[in-house]
């Protein structure tokens, strides 16, 4: 066990994967000599050289397109997209190609690329260094999407992603890259996909969150306990595949649900969670399902703290939900 920040855990995961498997390589903008703009790839270039830690031209189309070609050939490329906000030039390759290769070839061409990308607000990044558009990717059949919120999950899910047989979008909550630290197992410590993480047990209401929304959600639960409300907190962490069983079971127990995410509400991931509950936990529900999310506006700069959910707004929603019905 070592105490690491979240971004250090990502870095550690990359080192371990590259050391243990010569097929793993890293490519992206500023990932080599510079060690990544968030230092997630720090040190890799020195140890593995320019052939396996590739500084690419400024083209996300090229990064993901060539990563796909490498994967088809049998390598395990880990592509970095500098900010999730800049992934769109690669969207065609992700949506039309990466996610559909296995399917359209009748299983002849699996295509296993990991795309890592920092996402989310709270770093004074404005419209283009803050967005949380995971829903686009979750709606894309053939793609897995995971979001760690602890250092152990960061390394554990990353190693699972790199050794998975399918394409994975690995979203890193950059807001808590350095503010969250935690014990990380020294060995492999892989965390399986498709399992949610129970952060805190509770009986009155279920709070669902992921990524950088987990800390304020936990904080809210703690404070709610002081008010006599027992909130269960579940870190979804694996958005695709989603651990629906845990989500449903929690609400079958509590009867009340609040879904938290940074992304805009309309057609966001919270919609899917609500729909799953409205179908599969319907008879347990005692109150309307609440969503605490970003607003249906682009992501603002100066007022981001008003835009983003926080412990107070989460508590407020949880209280209303508990009082309702």
């Amino acid at each position: 066990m070592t105490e690491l920040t979240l971004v250090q855990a990502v870095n550690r995961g990359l080192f371990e994967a590259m050391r243990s498997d010569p097929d793993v390589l890293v490519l992206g903008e500023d990932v080599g000599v510079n060690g990544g703009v968030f230092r997630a790839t720090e040190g890799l270039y020195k140890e593995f050289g320019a052939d396996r830690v590739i500084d690419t031209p400024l083209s996300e189309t090229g990064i993901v397109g060539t990563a796909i070609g490498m994967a088809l050939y049998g390598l395990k490329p880990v592509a970095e997209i500098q900010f999730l906000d800049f992934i769109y030039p690669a969207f065609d390759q992700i949506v039309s190609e990466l996610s559909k290769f296995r399917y359209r070839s009748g299983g002849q061409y699996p295509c296993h690329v990991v795309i890592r990308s920092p996402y989310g607000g709270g770093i004074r990044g404005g419209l283009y260094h803050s967005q949380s558009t995971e829903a686009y990717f979750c709606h894309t059949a053939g793609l897995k999407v995971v979001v760690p919120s602890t250092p152990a999950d960061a390394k554990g899910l990353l190693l699972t992603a790199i050794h998975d047989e399918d394409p994975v979008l690995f979203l890193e909550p950059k807001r808590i890259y350095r503010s969250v630290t935690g014990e990380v197992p020294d060995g492999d410590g892989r965390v399986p996909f498709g399992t949610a993480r129970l952060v805190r047990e509770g009986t009155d209401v279920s709070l669902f969150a992921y990524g950088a929304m987990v800390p304020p959600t936990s904080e809210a639960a703690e404070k709610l306990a002081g008010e006599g409300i027992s909130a269960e907190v579940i870190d979804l962490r694996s958005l695709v595949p989603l651990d629906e069983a845990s989500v449903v079971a929690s609400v079958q127990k509590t009867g009340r649900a609040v879904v938290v995410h940074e992304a805009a509400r309309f057609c966001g991931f919270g919609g899917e969670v609500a729909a799953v509950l409205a179908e599969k936990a319907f008879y347990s529900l005692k109150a309307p399902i609440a969503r605490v999310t970003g607003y249906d506006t682009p992501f603002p700069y100066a007022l981001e703290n008003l835009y983003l959910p926080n412990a107070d707004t989460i508590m407020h929603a949880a209280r209303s939900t508990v009082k309702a019905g």
Partner: protein
Amino acid sequence: MAESAVPSVAPASGSDSADGLSPQRLLEAYRTMVLARVTDERCLHLQRQGRIGFYAPLQGQEAAQVGAAMALRPEDWVFPAYREMAVALLRGVPLQAIIDQLFSDSSDLTKGRQMPNHFGFRAQNFVVASSPIGTQITQAVGAAMAARLRGDPIVTVPFFGDGATSSNDFHAGLNFAGVFKVPTVFFCQNNEWAISLPREKQTRSPTLAEKAKAYGFSGVVIDGNDVKAVYRTVLDARRRAVAGGGPTLIEAQVYRFGPHSTSDDPHRYRSNAELEAAKRKDPVLRLQRELKEAHGLDEAGDSKIWDDARAQLSAAIEVAEKTPKVAPDSFLDDVFATPTPRLAEERAAFEALVREGVIKP
């Protein structure tokens, strides 16, 4: 018969002196071109009869495809668009496999998932095609980087059209190839049209080949109706690439004789005169003439080649039409290596609906 009309891939160098093609190999080329031509014509009919759902013909592009494919080795990777049937044939893909794909029967390697022409044949390193224009170009560059890292002395070859030079992936792919000096041979079949858009409205550069200069390497224009010129040029580019000399962009000038696809009506945008002029340079007839004039192919020999091709084709179609269709629930396979719980649930729901007679496959 089938074997000779569909030659397996022979090593690109060796027997052919001074980068030329021996009469024997020219005849092989011709057989493949004839088979492609015959298949192409029949498929247009099959589509009209409703026996297949769609078709995109390659007539006019046979020499470019066969010439390029002959210069490659089995270990090389081809990244096709949707017109590269002759490339597939030359690389040893059985005609039956192609016909099975067009009919999406249960032998179709792509399992009925894709429209006709979107082939994929792993055994022949013929990567599965998609519809979005240009996407295979960056992929081919990435595969070449991977091959070099593994120490495999091969090239990757994306095939694409004049229209694809406007795509994002053309720009990114050629730029990465230049920067990383990648062993990729970019093979552009300029057939003068991108559906209804003529070549000169696609871009103002005088040739497509010269676009390579913007990426720090060179491009070459060739007559795509001349199978030998195509072969020599690709052989050359391949050799340079494998030796570490970097990529080449080849523009093979051809003409699309048929409609863009069976959904298209070319009379809306191009003249018959233009088509007739292009047909006077028909690559299949040109090679036929050469074989007759210089290499002793006689009428009877030639007729046999065409007849053999037709017979082989008819046999393949017959097999395809007798082959069962893909299994009803097979569209739920191959999303992931292992189905997620959600997909398992959806399969169960689908099966229940079938059982209850709600869905009638």
